[in-house]
């Protein structure tokens, strides 16, 4: 604790120093159990007659499955059950279906086409782990190997192999409109024209494995009253529970999930791959079943932080002011969406980094490749682009011959500045951080830079939303037909302008009185009677579901993170007509965002666009 230095001299008047916990060192609530070796992990729960599960996994990056022959495995000693893809009740899911974002694209066990090395095809349950391994080794899968793509930009070529049939363009569909997430603020072309220097850079990071000490796993066992208990290492207990209920098409009230000790997560234990298979195995065998990754699986199959590639182009004045910044970003989400689609929204909201730049444009792509699906890891969506931005700041400093810390202080955002995603910046402490870091590192900065503060100099003109150039390049599917540039605005036939100050009003649906009163009937697992599903009830569905704070970035809503350019939001179908100056009234949706209404004969688990 002694290594922490609290700089209470900074922002003293903004802080209440009488608080008992905040701003004070504290002891982790679980540390005593950890250091004394008494914390029980999921694998510490012993069951009489515990069975072990192993998966048969794809050895190919991309292959169609012609047939699966499990007859030899059935006859192997100790084998109690072989689970085939058709044994999974509802064998298609996407993680963010639980918040209605994206289409179901991933099977729990893949029976049609594998899209990455290690994708599970068949699960074997046997009395010992070795028996399960030996049985998995004799399962015969007949593959038709397909061409694969492992590079994000190659995956965007018109003739690239299609990784996921759910997303035939190899990109996640944003707002049912574009194959990428747009961000437009001001006019970068004008900024580049004014600039004294143009500084360009390409940055890339590889996938990073979270490498937990305890590999991902779960033990499920039958309980009384048709319930199943599941001890799991998940980071997201109720997320895993909801996912299990959906994949197994069973009410969540039959699932008793126990977590708490994660054994090292760092984002790698949210994917809920183990709980559904363990519960299904327990259901099919009537016995306790353990399913856990071994270390090789954790490294190969466990989802990492995805690879990212960023192109940054800055327009810089001789004095170091950055007047325009343009991003083209590619997230390698691997073969299935998992959480990458959300990481892009989050990353776009962060652009152009903690700096006030009057003209910003960005296109960020969530690209499917035949690599291990990517997922969460500590600040995912931000880390990669922040690495790129800060590398690029140093490159800019070099280009204009400036002290890199002074360059950051000069361009840093200040309280009251308008961020590119049209939120006012507050509590911006970058200037103070730079000053403290410089002094700690004995890095000389000018007296002028040392005198700056984030509390002053912001707001005013810097709080204004500039006139913004928009374009409609990169509609869903367009890239599949022709090769078109990936950078913002390039190759766009239709451009529009949105007048300065245009902002979209947020939607506020009738809020529940308390957050914990939000109930989504579709998630509780209780089937509703026909009477309850009568049209009189929809308000029950719609009102509580519109989240008051986090809004999934569905087009009719005002996403707090990064709205697409205002024009396409307001008039998605208008092409050149969007050139007209601002409408008299800011855009306001006619009705609040609502989740799809249940229709007879339609799975209550279909998510996203297909729901409506």
């Amino acid at each position: 604790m002694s290594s922490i230095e609290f700089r209470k001299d900074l922002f003293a008047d903004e802080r209440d120093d009488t608080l008992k916990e905040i701003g004070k060192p504290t002891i982790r609530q679980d540390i005593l159990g950890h250091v004394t070796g008494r914390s029980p992990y999921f694998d510490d729960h012993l069951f009489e007659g515990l069975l072990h599960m192993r998966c048969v996994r794809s050895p190919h990056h991309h292959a169609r499955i012609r047939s699966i022959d499990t007859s030899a495995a059935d006859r192997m000693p100790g084998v109690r059950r072989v689970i085939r893809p058709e044994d999974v009740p509802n064998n298609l899911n996407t993680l963010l279906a639980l918040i209605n974002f994206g289409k179901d694209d991933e099977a729990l066990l893949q029976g049609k086409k594998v899209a990455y090395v290690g994708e599970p095809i068949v699960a074997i349950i046997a009395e010992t782990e070795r028996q399960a391994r030996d049985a998995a080794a004799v399962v015969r899968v007949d593959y038709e190997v397909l061409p694969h793509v492992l590079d994000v930009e190659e995956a965007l070529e018109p003739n690239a192999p299609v990784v996921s049939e759910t997303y035939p363009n190899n990109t996640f569909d944003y707002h049912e409109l574009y194959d990428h997430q747009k961000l437009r603020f001001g006019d970068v072309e004008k900024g580049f024209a004014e600039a004294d220097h143009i500084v360009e850079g390409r940055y890339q990071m590889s996938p990073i494995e979270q490498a937990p000490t305890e590999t991902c796993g779960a033990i499920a066992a039958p309980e009384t009253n048709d319930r199943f208990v599941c001890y799991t290492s998940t980071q997201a207990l109720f997320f895993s529970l909801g996912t299990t209920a959906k994949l197994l098409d069973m009410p969540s009230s039959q699932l008793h999930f126990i977590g708490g000790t994660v054994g090292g997560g760092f984002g790698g234990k949210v994917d809920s791959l183990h709980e559904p298979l363990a519960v299904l195995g327990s259901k099919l065998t009537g016995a306790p079943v353990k399913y856990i990754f071994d270390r090789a699986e954790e490294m190969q199959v466990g989802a990492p932080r995805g690879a990212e590639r960023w192109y940054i182009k800055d327009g810089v004045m001789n004095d170091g002011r950055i007047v325009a910044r343009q991003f083209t970003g590619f997230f390698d989400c691997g073969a299935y969406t998992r959480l990458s689609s959300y990481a892009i929204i989050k990353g776009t909201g962060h652009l152009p980094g903690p700096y006030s730049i009057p003209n910003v444009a960005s296109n960020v792509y969530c690209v499917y490749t035949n690599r291990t699906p990517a997922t969460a890891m500590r600040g995912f969506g931000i880390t990669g682009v922040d690495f790129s931005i800060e590398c690029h700041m140093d490159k800019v400093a070099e280009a204009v011959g400036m002290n890199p810390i002074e360059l950051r202080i000069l361009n840093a955002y200040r309280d009251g500045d308008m961020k590119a995603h049209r939120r006012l910046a507050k509590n911006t402490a970058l200037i103070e951080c730079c000053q403290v870091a410089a002094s700690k590192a004995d890095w000389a900065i000018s007296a002028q830079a040392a005198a700056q503060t984030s509390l002053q100099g912001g707001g005013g003109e810097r709080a204004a939303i500039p006139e913004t150039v928009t374009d409609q390049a990169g509609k869903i599917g367009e890239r599949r037909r022709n090769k078109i540039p990936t950078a913002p605005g390039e190759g766009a036939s239709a451009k529009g302008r949105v007048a300065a100050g245009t902002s979209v009003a947020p939607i506020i649906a009738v809020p529940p009185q308390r957050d914990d009163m939000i109930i989504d009937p579709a998630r509780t697992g209780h089937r509703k009677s026909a009477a309850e599903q009568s049209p009189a009830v929809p308000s029950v569905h719609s009102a509580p579901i519109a989240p008051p704070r986090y809004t999934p970035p569905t087009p009719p809503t005002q996403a707090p993170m990064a709205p697409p350019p205002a024009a396409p939001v307001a008039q998605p179908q208008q092409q050149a007509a969007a050139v007209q100056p601002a409408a008299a009234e800011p855009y306001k949706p006619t009705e609040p965002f609502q989740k799809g209404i249940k229709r007879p004969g339609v799975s209550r688990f279909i998510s996203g666009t297909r729901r409506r």
Partner: protein
Amino acid sequence: MLTVETFDTLAQAAGAMTPESRFLGGGTLIMRGVNYGDQSFQRIVRVRDRSLREIRSESGRIVIGAGATMADVMAASETSFLADVARQVGGPAVRNMATIGGNLFAPHPYGDFTTALLALDASVRLSDGSEQPIENFLSARSSMRGLVASVSVSRPMGDEFRFRKVSRVKPKGVSVMSIAVWLPRQGGRISQARIAFGAMGPTPLRAKAAEQALEGVNLDAQGIEQALSVATAGLSPMDDSLASAWYRNEVAPVHLRRVLLGEGNR
């Protein structure tokens, strides 16, 4: 189903070995295989003969029992010249378990201790009493039947023997390569040098071209120049997660120079 069989003598154990058996030394490799689902063996064979751990002098040579651990080698006065090599194998927990016999069979990139034994021209004694030079043993180890009882080496003089392990993580990292050299000198000039590289091929290998190039030269920058230029001749490094074969080939002469000239010692 995995079974474990324990025997009183090495000879009995040797008789019980089949292609699906593994002999348990310290278990630092075998038990990892068990834990991580190695399906290549069904039986584990072990002996309870404590004499396998002995380290003793015998007619001018040091005999190290196959069951001696790295920690035993570090502790024994007879093997003080190998203590530094043993200390660079794994961490304390591994050194307390890992045996000299096991190290002889450790696959790439392990086998640092064996690299030292190769440079010292050790002799390997098998359970049937036969003995063979370590170089012959290593070239045939993948198809070997029988068990190792002990290895013997002669004690090198002064600073004739040198060893260096190159790893990215210190102190417990796995070898990018290890280098062991034995440099007998006559009248200040090198004679009959032996150079062994670990993690530069499927087994520890000798750099024979470099050995020949050192014959009769002085141990200085000029004298070793020719040896460095042929340092990697006859080696066949592999790509792995620690380093590419290309990288290993590029840096091998650099590290060999440091070993020969005693540069960069810490």
